[in-house]
């Protein structure tokens, strides 16, 4: 039993989930994470590369990979151990100009082999900013109803006020748990 086996087994044993935070640059991925973590969000700079954060949520260990928005950073979620359990796609609700970009990126992403079956949570971020698009509008703009390959859900949220952040995470954790740890969700 080598390290690679240990890593793989630890997902089952320690109830770990691997969650990717993705989205165009300036969508607010790192800010959301900092807010959840109770850190100061006033001094967030663009993420070059990626960060791994670990939270305990419910009885699960969430390993969250916050990956910078640039396309060149894709290799970082080509991971060494296993497929991704969930994707959190963060959208800047005020950025109407790039909504089309955003849709294309998202749909391309879902074609990836290593993401097959992963749950998809869309965060319509920056709801605190006046004039931003609603979750319904965004759902349409991103053609979410057209996604059949993944379980998905959209939550409007705000990294600044903390609106819906935990609720959204709750949904995604629940969805993954039902797939990976069915026996413990239904028996525990």
């Amino acid at each position, binding site marked *: *039993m*080598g*390290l*690679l*086996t*240990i*890593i*793989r087994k630890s997902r*089952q044993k320690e109830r770990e989930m691997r969650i990717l935070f993705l989205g165009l640059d300036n969508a607010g991925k790192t800010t959301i994470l900092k807010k*959840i*973590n*109770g850190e100061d969000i006033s001094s967030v700079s663009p993420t*070059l*590369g*990626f*960060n*791994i954060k*670990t*939270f*305990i*949520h*419910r009885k699960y*260990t969430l390993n969250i*990979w916050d990956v910078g928005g640039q396309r060149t950073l894709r*290799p*970082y979620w*080509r*991971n*060494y*151990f*296993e*497929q991704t359990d969930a994707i959190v796609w963060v959208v800047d609700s005020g950025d109407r100009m790039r909504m089309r970009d955003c849709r294309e990126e998202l749909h391309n992403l879902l074609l990836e*082999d*290593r993401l*097959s*079956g*992963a749950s998809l949570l869309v965060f319509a971020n920056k709801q605190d900013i006046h004039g931003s698009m609603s979750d319904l509008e965004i759902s349409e703009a991103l053609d979410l109803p057209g996604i059949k390959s993944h379980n998905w859900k959209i939550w409007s949220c705000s990294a600044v006020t903390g609106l819906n952040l*935990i609720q959204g*995470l709750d949904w995604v954790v629940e969805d993954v748990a*039902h*797939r*990976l*740890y*069915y*026996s413990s969700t239904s028996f525990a």
Partner: protein
Amino acid sequence: MDEDSQETRLFAVFERHDEFVAAQNTLLVVDLFGEPNREEEDVELDCSRKLIMIFGEYQEQSYLLDPYLESLVSPVAECLRKYALTCVNARVTQSSHSRVERLADLLHNYIKFRGYKTITRFFPHEISDLSIALDFIRLPSGPVSDLSQWGLRYAVLLWLSLICRIPFDLQKFDDATRSGETANAIELVGKDRLNMAGLEREGAATLLARFYARKDTKQQLASFVEWSITVFRSSDIILSIGVLQVLCELVKSGSSEQLQAFTQKFLEITNTLEHSTPLVSNTLVRKYRTKLLSRVALRLMPPRVSRSKLTFRSLDGDVKNQTDNGNVDDGDEDIDVPEEIDMILESLFKSLQDKDTVVRWSAAKGIARLSERLPSDFSSQVLETILGLFSIHSVAGASVYDTPAIAEATWHGASLASAEMARRGLVQTSALGSLLGWLSKALYFDIRKGAHSIGSNVRDAAAYVIWALARAQDPESFSPYARELAQWLVSVALFDREIHIRRAASAAFQEHVGRMALFPHGIDVLRKTDFYAVSVRRNAFTVAAPQVAEHLEYRSYLIDHIISITLRHWDVAMRELGAQALRRICELDLKTLGLECASKMAGFLHSVDVSDVHGALAALTGISEAYRVQGSEENARNRQKIFAFIAIVSQDAVMAPRNGLILAAACDLIASSLTLQEVGLQEKTSVPHWKRIVDQGLRHRSSSVQQAAAAAMASTSSLIDCSLDSLQQSLGYTLGVLDYNAHPHGFSEVVKCLLDSVDPNSSGRMSSIEARRNCFQALPKIVANVLPRLTEFLDALDSGLDDYTMDERGDIGSWVRMACIQGLASIFEDLFRVSGSIPQFANYLPAQRYHSVIARILRQGVERLDNVRQIAGHCLLRLFRIPLPNISHQEEWRIKGSELMMKLFLNDASDAMTSWSVGEWLFPKAVELLRVQEYRQPLLTGLIHSVGARTGSTHRPASSSLVSFARGLPLCPSDSGYSLFELCDDLIECAQGRTTSNAVVVPILQTFNMLLEADVLSHLSSVHSGPSKLEKLLNIATRNVLRLKNVQRVQESMKIVVNLLVVSSVSKSSSERIIDFLSHPYPKIRTSTAEYLYTLIQSRDLGWEADEAVEELLLETEWYSLRKACK
């Protein structure tokens, strides 16, 4: 996991659910008491196999079946229950063995798939089930007692283990008169099977553990523990393992008040075991002993709220204080630690150094779990002790290489324990320095042991520690070590010998980059060394390593690693790759790095260790190669300096007959570093004996050394004229690469020598097949330079196509044939290209000659060996594509039937190049070429050869294609194309010339038989002179039959004769000859003739009604023993 993680598919849901249920239902509806008939048996077996296959597919993601498990397993368990009930009620003992076995097997596979704990839950557990299961398993001579029904026993034992947890007093099940009967029965069922070697033992142990964990079995538990002590004294290994399994399970899941009384007993037991030599020599005994010890210890230390240092933030309010506890905890550090703990830990430390991995693992986990419950100063002492283990076998100042081999176990155990501690956040910042110090050595732990090495497990475990530290430690405590740690990990990820270690190091690196962000250029370097980049060793060494070395922080460390470890590695391949990696890295800054590395390498040339010298020479070659590629005068001087290093290696070392490796490396170095200046120095050269080294290389018996020496010769000859003295095998290599344009004087001798060496009629022909192959390979090389004397070459290469030499290695002539095919093709290509400038091209290569060679290559393209066909096909397509010679009447050189070929082979461009080796693809196309008259005869010969092949993948497609081709042919010859008549004629022609050669005649007879059986030839007698052809065939088949020794040939002849019965024109004459076979001296021939004849009479229309008496006679006669004429 390794590679398979990429290869096995990842699933998101249980896609094959419906299919699975259907197959399972088929197995569940059958009557277990009735034997299946043959068809049913087949169907059920298929279902069973299918289920197992689906299990296999999902094994790695077994959790995906969880939502369905209840609906899947319950019916199976219910089926078992019903079966048991019927057996018990009716006292039946007769049931279908195979069906019951399949049912049990299905349950066993579920358990294997998802674990017994999960699966057992779905077994029925009504009160009434207790007596069913119990009676069933005790049924005298019932199915459970059948020795081969281990799966059934296992399932029923597990079932019982579930039922016996019912919350009722077992006495309620007893007859009034015999109290305690039920409990005793259950215990007996378990105990009786505790000494079985198979899985049943595990089932029995589970049952007993559950049984003793009951509240009403206190008495029995006490006596079981007493009994177990006698078992251990008796040294019955299997039974001891069983008993230990019960105890381990019990200590884990039993209630504490029940167990408290036995703590001392358990410790006594572990003590007894340690001193029982026969028991302690068994791995499993040691493993369970370790397990028992650590579980007893965990019972002694109550669990506390985790004071783990893992500072993960919890998002839920109510669990939150978990992490804050670290500070609060300091208050209750004065927990009582029972004194037994000390003793247990000591014993666990011993197990940590056990010679078996499983024991070390168990100890490591036990120690870490226990430490989690200990006060923090105590647990840091534990860590200190673990670290102390590293130093046991380390002599101060010595490198890892001098560590004794037994250190492997200790280091592995210590690393595992450190990793388990680190994972639980039990490594204090103060201990980090010394831990990392040891890890820096463990990461490179590699002890040579004969022709292999040990220690990859230590390296893996070291990566595990570092990975675990990344998850549990905070960045501040790591920052002083970050830079070094990054260098260690990268060098292991790039340069370890094993793929899983490279990946493990890469994983640890990634974890640190993502969590600590302390590594220099972490993200860039990670991209260059990720899981995939390091998978292929060559890629890691020659692509990823130089990329990483672009960062100065890593460069010198990588170079040092290559020089001090990789180039001295015990594996040649590692040294060679290491040399390439070093070259690539030096090329980043050749000016500074080149000579610096070279002089370091020169230091190793003194070594007495062959590997060191070889590694150093290989590295020097690489650097010198780098200089050569860059050119410039200064670099030439540098190469001269490197060349001078050769003198350092002792001549004895180079010249020793067994040091071929060094000799080859030295030749390589000469080839890459020899300069004109150096040669000009004549006697004053810095390496006076370099010519002798090359000479020695040419004479060496290993071909790789010869090749290296030939390369050295080539580079010498490009500088100066050199006279030859070379021998046999290496002759080919050498002569092929010499530069004749510069020094033409020896050329005709060389050619004569080569031709002589391969001429079958010459006394100078070389007897060694390798030597001949080398010579043939040399010929086209020379032609590339020199055109005249072409026809001689062609003749020689052409005759090489007839080399069918066989020895115990098989058809070794094929090496020569392949070399010749390729040689011919490249000669033609060259020739056509320069055709414009050759006066009288037709004299060199007459069109007819060209076509006959093409036909003969075509023949090679349809013969038996896949690789020969592949090469022939490849060459043909190459020839097909080259433009025609640039001369008058060029059309004469166009390949015949080119339109047909174009249609057949160039239609699907994608696979055209690759498929000649695949019989199914090739033969249906190849037979079509028979329509091309010019190539027909050789092609037919090749096809017959393939029909006669014993290789199924050649024989089958070749025969079936030939038959269907024949079927599609018109009967009579016409002007436009081929006909069936001509095909037969050609085949008979082939056979007639060489009736004595079985290799020729047997395949032809086989071919005819196929055609006859397929009813293709029956109309032949209606054609003019058709009957006479068939007579000829009959003649070939029957002549001298009684004198033939080859059974296969007689068989085929017999079939011809019998088959011809159907053909009206020859049926009379053939029927007269059948007697010869029915009365043949070989019993086997008589029997098979009768059989074959009978089948024919039964199945074919003979034009007359066969006498029933004949049929009967054929059937009834004892052909094997009798020998009589009949009919």
